[in-house]
């Protein structure tokens, strides 16, 4: 919770805030009877916390991918079968992808795939109109 008594409050100037988002946020803050300072602080706190949570997810995905690469010689014995990798472990082998998918729903993060070829890194092109979220927010 935001501690209004002990938190040090600071005045900042933020450039490049989306006008429509700002107007809607100001209106929502007014409706809820909170200051824009409090609303922005809460939004920034959520953004930081989500980022930390995402770091954890990304780390787990990387560890699972590393597991697949390190254990590929074992995994390829299941060629044509569906596997679920989570927590750096082979959690299950299934005859169909659908079955594996139902099983993997119990994990927050899992690789679920039919064993075929050694996984590679692939690149996807994005068109010139696409802006990254960080650019919009900066």
């Amino acid at each position, binding site marked *: 919770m935001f501690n209004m008594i002990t938190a040090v409050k600071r005045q900042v100037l933020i450039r490049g805030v989306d006008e429509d988002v700002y107007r809607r946020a100001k209106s929502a803050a007014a409706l809820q009877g909170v200051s824009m300072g409090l609303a922005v602080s809460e939004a920034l706190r959520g953004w930081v916390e989500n980022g930390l949570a995402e770091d954890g997810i990304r780390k787990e995905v990387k560890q699972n991918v590393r597991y697949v690469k390190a254990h590929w010689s074992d995994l390829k014995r299941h060629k044509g079968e569906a596997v679920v990798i989570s927590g750096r472990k082979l959690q299950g082998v299934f005859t169909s992808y659908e079955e594996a998918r139902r099983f993997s729903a119990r994990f927050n993060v899992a690789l679920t795939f039919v064993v075929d070829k050694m996984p590679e890194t692939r*690149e996807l*092109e994005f068109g010139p109109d*696409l802006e*990254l979220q960080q650019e919009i927010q900066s």
Partner: protein
Amino acid sequence: MISVELAGMTLECVVDTGFSGGLVIPLSTFESLGLLAALVPEEYLAVMPDSRKVPLYTASEEVVAGSSRVRTLVHAASALDRKLAGRAFLQSFVTTLDGPREAASLSLQSAL
């Protein structure tokens, strides 16, 4: 824009022929649909027009478009808060663009 259904959720996606992947959805939607538990083992990187590379979460999922159901790759990244339908998804269909109406329609290739 085209309307697709992913894991029971209807999404309006911008048709982006400049994007070579399947579908892009916001990470919050990707997470809420449980797709973090259906990731593919391949690592996908989005190469931005300025050559920066952004790692993507990627899952293989069935998508319903009209009366057609196709399996496609669904991508997400916290830096990409967009809903896009790219070429890997569109290649299953014949896409007709209606400029004046700013609309796109899809029909399955096999139906022709």
